[in-house]
């Protein structure tokens, strides 16, 4: 009978152990089984049964304690100010790293591959400098070639067309081809284009982008000299250029360099881009990177902008600054700007503590800028209209980030900068004019309370901090324990 009872008790202990989380179960069961052996050897069945009944309560309490400890640990982990800054730093470095990996964004980050990028300009009609649409006709290009030698030392014309490229054996692929005058590589003066474009014969020369070479020619190392069929005629492949070597308007997979005679066969009103090298006599001021040009026409004058390629490289950052400014202006519509009222308290708010609080806010603001900037650039590369997507993503990201920075700062203790915990609702809305009604949060170390009004009133418009003096310390855990649990 006694043996049967022991089996029943052991079974009950095993049942109770199922309540205990798995990581603690073995140790828990071992202790209870050991204790049961000693209890059973000294006492009768009734006392042993009472002892085993306590195991269920112990199992429930242990389970609840572990759950609370887990929640506290995760909260403590997330509320540290240093961890917050570390997280932002990692996010910033990650977005910068991704930007360097993506060819589109890497081009914006690396220095220009063109020699003297300031004097290399893209000529476009007034108001269209940042548009991706061509705005100059072939006729205008020819006119400048003849009559604007005092402004430009050299000029090239190109237009982006989407055409089929017959790569042999009956295979054809559709590519964006920049159909350009043959002086384009000499004008750009970049090692990538110059080295790879040595003429082998009188055929138009085709330069492939690295991505097109890899995708459609399987990275064939003997591709140079191969003859392909494009735009109704034969062309000889003259080389392959790195993806980030092209920084001019228009996305191209290949460049077809044609003689003046070939380009001259285009209609005179064919629209394209004009890239030119400014005469040194006009570019004395090193800060200047935009010039305006007025061209006489039969019925009046026409205005053109000559924008330096160096200026184009700054475009993504100019767009970011513009969108960030818009986000800053929109911020008051989404959250209140004041950080709250913090009464002066020389014991708890020394100059260094106040400085630390503002430094923390500044560090967060400084770190969210590269996060939003490079993340928006990275995301924009996924879409064809890079500029519009970058503007939208930057606006949304900066608005959300600025809002988070302010809200996070308001929810932190001004002394230890830990996130405040244990929000409780105090007061009743119906008594709003008689007593305050809102949420109270507490600093776990015991530095004070934060009172956030539910409904801003003339006498309680923003959140208020209430410092607790040293007499309150006895009810709080010491800082080193409170911060880690």
């Amino acid at each position: 009978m006694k043996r049967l009872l022991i089996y029943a008790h052991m079974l009950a202990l095993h049942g109770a152990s199922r309540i205990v989380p798995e990581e603690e179960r073995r140790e828990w069961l071992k202790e209870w089984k050991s204790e049961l052996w000693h209890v059973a050897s000294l006492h009768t069945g009734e006392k042993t049964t009472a002892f085993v009944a306590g195991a269920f309560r112990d199992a429930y309490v242990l389970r609840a304690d572990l759950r609370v400890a887990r929640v506290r640990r995760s909260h403590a982990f997330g509320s540290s100010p240093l961890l917050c800054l570390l997280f932002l730093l990692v996010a910033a470095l990650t977005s910068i790293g991704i930007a360097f990996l993506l060819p589109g964004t890497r081009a914006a980050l690396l220095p220009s591959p063109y020699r003297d990028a300031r004097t290399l300009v893209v000529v476009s009609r007034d108001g269209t400098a940042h548009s991706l649409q061509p705005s100059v006709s072939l006729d205008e290009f020819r006119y400048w070639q003849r009559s604007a030698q005092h402004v430009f030392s050299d000029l090239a014309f190109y237009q982006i067309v989407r055409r089929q490229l017959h790569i042999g054996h009956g295979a054809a692929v559709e590519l964006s081809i920049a159909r350009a005058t043959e002086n384009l590589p000499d004008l750009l003066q970049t090692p990538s284009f110059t080295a790879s474009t040595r003429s082998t014969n009188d055929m138009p020369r085709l330069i492939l982008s690295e991505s097109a070479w890899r995708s459609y020619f399987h990275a064939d190392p003997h591709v140079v000299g191969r003859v392909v069929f494009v735009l109704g005629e034969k062309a000889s492949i003259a080389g392959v250029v790195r993806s980030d070597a092209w920084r001019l308007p228009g996305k191209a997979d290949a460049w077809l360099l044609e003689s003046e005679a070939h380009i001259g066969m285009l209609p005179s009103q064919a629209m394209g881009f004009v890239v030119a090298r400014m005469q040194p006599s006009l570019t004395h001021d090193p800060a200047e990177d935009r010039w305006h040009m007025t061209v006489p026409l039969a019925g009046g004058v026409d205005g053109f902008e000559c924008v330096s390629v160096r200026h184009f490289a700054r475009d993504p950052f100019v767009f970011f600054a513009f969108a960030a400014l818009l986000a800053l202006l929109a911020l008051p519509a989404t959250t209140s700007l004041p950080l709250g009222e913090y009464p002066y308290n020389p014991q708890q708010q020394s100059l260094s503590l106040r400085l630390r609080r503002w430094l923390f806010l500044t560090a967060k603001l400084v770190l969210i800028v590269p996060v939003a900037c490079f993340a928006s650039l990275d995301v924009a590369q996924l879409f064809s209209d890079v500029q519009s997507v970058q503007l939208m993503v930057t606006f949304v990201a900066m608005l959300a980030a600025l809002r988070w920075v302010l809200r996070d700062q308001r929810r932190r203790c001004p002394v230890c900068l830990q996130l405040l915990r244990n929000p409780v609702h105090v007061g009743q809305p119906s008594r709003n004019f008689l007593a305050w009604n809102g949420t109270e949060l507490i600093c776990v170390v015991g530095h004070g309370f934060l009172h956030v009004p539910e409904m801003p009133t003339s006498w309680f418009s923003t959140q208020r901090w209430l410092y607790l003096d040293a007499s309150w310390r006895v009810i709080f855990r010491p800082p080193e324990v409170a911060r880690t649990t």
Partner: protein
Amino acid sequence: MGAEAKLSHTAALILRAISAGYIYGFSVMEMTGLPSGTVYPAMRRLERDGLIQSKWEAETIATAEQRPPRKYYKVTRAGKTTLEASLKRYPLLEKMIPQSEEEHV
């Protein structure tokens, strides 16, 4: 730990019992008269707060005596400080459980 004034009477009683030499759960139960469902959770929390620490008895000793090994508890330095403060708060504890030099195994 330094949370001297926070111990409840029951927790202080258990801490005092362990300090007095009742170093495993069942002996604490016997000494304090508290049920197992109170003593074991309280000891676990005292250990979590660093006031006591546990250690399993060596298998060889238990095997030689033909019984399972026991889990023994002892009061830490922080536990002693806390107990001193608790004894000021609950002076009767000293009379209920007199301090003993020997461990009640």
